[in-house]
């Protein structure tokens, strides 16, 4: 029923505990010194938080011998949770590296920035590891509140304030819907514990109104967080207004954390009553894939473009929740890992081109990047191709896995929609690449000459590592797939 020995909990939640300690340490460090105008605070605190992420990673690696032996309480320490920890830690490490120069240049409150970034990761990691809807809710809230604050942390930016307020109001609304769903599920099954919900629904051939409503409200709450059409309205505005590294983090970590949890809840523990939510998800996936890709075609702001691209990816990933066989589960894990790397790499490039600020965010600003900054342009092109799912990039393998999983469960129409919407998405991914390589920078008088881009070491690292990982995952996928196959919930 529960962990009898309280220490087991500390062991099981080691990575989360370490990150929390580091976050609190950073905050107290930030207020312990009077000279807050320290020039190199970003550099120093960035390293400390990176050290925290690495420490959490070490603990996470050390948890592997205990995996599946500690999983009887409301916290799961299965290899699935540990794998999702890897993805989330990777995403936050990259976000931290991207942020270091940005926060110094933008004069953002550095300790709060990094601490909230770590707290958000804690919440997401807690959420993916929880076996109880109450704990899912608490994890979701920790992550959401941190990101609401991060979205608007640049107080001088009106757009940032707008983004933060919008995100906060809609996020709070969706959390309310989510919590209502939890309450209804609790009311109709008698427990918020996922294992007991599974037992209660084992021979459910007639589901009551209350349970179905609860399940759907739960799904709607998640769909808000990952931005599934028609719950995506906030995404473009919030992505556009937030500080750029935070946009990257939102598009990657929130989505990954929510989808890992989404799959655990719906794919495994609510699988018995799939007949009730399956049709809704089917439609949501279809509308999301087609709609988001079509709207993305006309976007000129790269952050909005990436927002719609992220929505489209949510649509692809919904198929894996629906098809939930082993193939599509590996597809989900593979896709999220690769998507995290590619999207964060992309945002690293964006931050560089924007020169650690918020200007030069139009697609046309990327004209001529290929001739001036071949390394950045090359990396960005590879990431774009990976997001589009081009062969020889990691995204291709992920899409193939999702496609195969969908076909194994006879979701033929969704598979066709996936292929068609991928073809549509090539247009806007390649359009950006085409601007980089084929267009010369327009010599209009109102656009000042683009400043020379100098790449800080941290960003060089992010770009290089992501580049290597994407290409490696695309050409030699077997190792990663092998590792993922040991991490599945459906073993």
């Amino acid at each position: 029923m529960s962990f009898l020995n309280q220490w087991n909990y500390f062991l099981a939640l080691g990575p989360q505990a370490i990150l929390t300690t580091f976050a609190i340490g950073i905050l107290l460090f930030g207020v312990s010194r009077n000279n807050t105008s320290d020039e190199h605070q970003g550099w120093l605190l960035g390293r400390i938080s990176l050290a925290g992420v690495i420490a959490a990673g070490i603990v996470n690696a050390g948890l592997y011998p205990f995996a599946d032996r500690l999983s009887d309480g409301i916290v799961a320490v299965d290899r699935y949770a540990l794998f999702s920890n890897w993805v989330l830690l990777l995403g936050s490490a990259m976000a931290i590296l991207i942020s270091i120069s940005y926060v110094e240049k933008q004069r953002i409150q550095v300790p709060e920035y990094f601490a909230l970034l770590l707290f958000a990761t804690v919440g997401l990691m807690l959420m993916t590891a929880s076996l109880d809807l109450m704990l899912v809710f608490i994890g979701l809230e920790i992550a959401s509140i941190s990101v609401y604050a991060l979205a608007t942390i640049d107080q001088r930016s009106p757009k940032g304030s707008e983004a933060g307020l919008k995100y906060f109001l809609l996020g709070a609304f969706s959390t309310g819907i989510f919590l209502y769903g939890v309450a209804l599920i609790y009311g109709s099954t008698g427990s918020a514990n996922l294992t007991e919900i599974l037992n209660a629904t084992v021979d459910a051939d007639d589901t009551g109104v209350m349970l179905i409503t609860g399940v759907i409200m739960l799904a709607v709450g998640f769909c808000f967080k990952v931005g599934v059409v028609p719950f995506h309205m906030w995404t473009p505005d919030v992505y556009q207004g937030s500080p750029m590294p935070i946009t990257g983090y939102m598009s990657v970590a929130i989505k990954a954390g929510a989808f890992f949890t989404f799959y655990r809840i719906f794919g495994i523990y609510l699988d018995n009553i799939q007949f009730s939510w399956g049709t809704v998800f089917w439609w949501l996936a279809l509308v999301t894939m087609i709609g988001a890709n079509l709207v993305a075609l006309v976007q000129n702001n790269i952050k909005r473009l990436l927002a719609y691209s992220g929505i489209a990816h949510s649509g692809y990933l919904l198929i894996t929740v629906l098809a939930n066989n082993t193939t599509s589960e590996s597809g989900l894990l593979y896709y999220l890992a690769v998507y995290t790397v590619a999207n964060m790499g992309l945002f690293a490039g964006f931050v560089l081109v924007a020169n650690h600020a918020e200007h030069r965010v139009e697609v046309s600003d990327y004209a001529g990047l290929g001739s001036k900054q071949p390394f950045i342009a090359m990396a960005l092109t590879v990431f774009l191709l990976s997001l589009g799912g081009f062969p020889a990039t990691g995204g291709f393998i992920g899409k193939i896995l999702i496609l195969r999983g969908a076909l194994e469960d006879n979701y033929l129409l969704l598979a066709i929609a996936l292929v068609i919407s991928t073809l549509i998405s090539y247009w806007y991914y390649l359009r950006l690449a085409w601007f980089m390589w084929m267009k010369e920078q327009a010599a209009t008088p109102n656009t000042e000459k683009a400043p020379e881009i100098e790449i800080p070491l941290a960003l060089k690292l992010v770009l290089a590592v992501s580049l290597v990982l994407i290409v490696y995952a695309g050409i030699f996928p077997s190792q990663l797939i092998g590792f993922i196959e040991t991490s599945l919930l459906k073993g």
Partner: protein
Amino acid sequence: MDSLIYFVLASVTVGGALGVVFGRSPIASLLFMIASLGSTAGIYVMLEAHFLAAIQIIVYAGAIMVLFLFVIMLLNLGHDYKRDIRGGLAILFAFGVTGGIGGLLASRVMPEGTLLLNSYPTGVSIDTEIAEKGIIGVIAEPLFNEYIVAFEFTGVLLFVAIVGALALAKRSD
């Protein structure tokens, strides 16, 4: 008698909630919300959940409503505002989506399906547990054993709330 009190409380709860939505000024909505939350506390009392009722009054009707009031005054809501909802097409879209999902759901509900699941675990009656552990003990036992992790992370959540509020409200100097 009991059901009469229940219906009074329930109708105040629902009516208050409707008042929140249709209230003319935000402050009026807020007062309706207090009425709604207060009668929810009354329902808790009828369910013998006295501790919850007290918490409901202290935290929700007291503290959180004050916060709401501050936010309303902070945003200076309540007069000459423009509707932020875009015109006909968006509303049509919203109703279409809601109706679509609702229709899908309705088609999944079996005609003979009950409100609750068939295998609803009846479990131990709450009365015997209350007699055994006391009204607060019924909450404390699971909170500090089974849900101890959730309890600790609630602490983290509260911490994040402080940090978030200060990061937004305090200007860095």
